[in-house]
């Protein structure tokens, strides 16, 4: 054994560090969790966006994903469980010049926060929502989420889930989102591109990212190593741009349809408000 890493240059800083809170790294996420990669893609997207980073705000709820706001060197708000979207709504309306991005988990956004999600979509509130779907509540150690596939096991569905899961893109589209995409965490380039598109969109834009939670969901469902899980989701996905999001259900097995599903133009809440006030 050697004491050295072959051919590697040892660094202290990463090129993306200026957008990161280095003093908080490494983050709390498990080895093999998809969340770090989502963050990498987000930062990479930020670097490509023509925005004043002082005007970009990230709002998270509570959950493993919800920690995202805490690692970004942007104005960041780690709110309460489920309330990222209404908090973000207040931020946006309080200062419409801000670019407000919500990054949170499937439980946070779809379970306790579901109502805010559909109402913000309905209003076409000018926000970007990145929903990391790991099919369970990671932070509280792997319980049932409203995205957990039927029959999947979790710590609170030990005999198999008796519920039908939400199809996030369909829910977003059906309630009014103007941009909707889904990728798995291994689709790094496409994911980055969708984040850029979503943030450039005026209106309620939603990017769902399918991401493994090897520590809980993967273990409960005997999905092998973290790496295997990531690969599994990637391999199961079929890119079908502009396909009907109603068809994009995710089961315990079977394919995962990914792609850009919706990209339409519609007046935002602020647009209509301005019209009404005059």
């Amino acid at each position, binding site marked *: 054994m050697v004491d050295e890493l072959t*051919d590697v*240059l040892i660094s202290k800083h990463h090129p993306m560090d200026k957008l*990161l809170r280095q003093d908080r790294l490494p983050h709390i996420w498990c080895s*093999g969790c998809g969340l*770090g*990669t989502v963050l990498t893609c987000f930062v990479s997207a930020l670097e490509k966006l023509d925005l004043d980073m002082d005007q970009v705000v990230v709002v998270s709820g509570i959950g493993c994903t919800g920690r995202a706001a805490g690692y970004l060197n942007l104005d960041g708000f780690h709110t309460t469980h489920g309330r990222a979207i209404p908090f973000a709504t207040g931020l946006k309306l309080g200062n419409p010049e801000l670019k407000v991005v919500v990054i949170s988990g499937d439980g946070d956004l779809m379970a306790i926060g579901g109502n805010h999600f559909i109402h913000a979509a309905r209003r076409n509130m000018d926000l970007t929502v990145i929903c990391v779907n790991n099919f369970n509540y990671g932070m509280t150690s792997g319980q049932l989420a409203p995205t957990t596939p039927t029959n999947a096991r979790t710590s609170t569905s030990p005999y198999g889930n008796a519920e039908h899961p939400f199809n996030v893109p369909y829910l977003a589209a059906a309630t009014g989102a103007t941009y909707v995409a889904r990728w798995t965490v291994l689709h790094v380039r496409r994911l980055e591109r969708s984040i850029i598109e979503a943030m450039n969109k005026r209106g309620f834009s939603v990017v769902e990212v399918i991401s493994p939670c090897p520590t809980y969901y993967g273990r409960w469902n005997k999905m092998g190593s973290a790496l295997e899980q990531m690969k599994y989701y990637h391999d199961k996905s079929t890119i079908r741009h502009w396909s009907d999001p109603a068809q994009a259900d995710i089961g315990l097995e079977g394919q995962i349809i990914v792609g850009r599903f919706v990209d339409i133009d519609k007046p935002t809440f602020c647009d209509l408000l301005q019209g009404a006030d005059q």
Partner: protein
Amino acid sequence: MKLWRKPLDQDRVVVPRGEIHLIVERCKGCQLCATYCPRDVLEMSSLFNTRGYHPPQVRNARRCLVCGLCTMLCPEFAIYVEEVGHDQ
């Protein structure tokens, strides 16, 4: 136990097209970089960092095309590649 000890900072061994940089203490040994590098540039080392993870190392630096995939995939902002010139 083998902890990684001696910083190799700027200690260039070959003249690659891309230089692979690592922030060792951030790495959680998830293997994503090594697994998905399209050019098989990386491999996992058997060293431990202080948090008990095995960081990757370079198996074949010359093959690196600076595609950036390892950087994008790394969940820890632990690895990145810098283009330093062309291998002529």
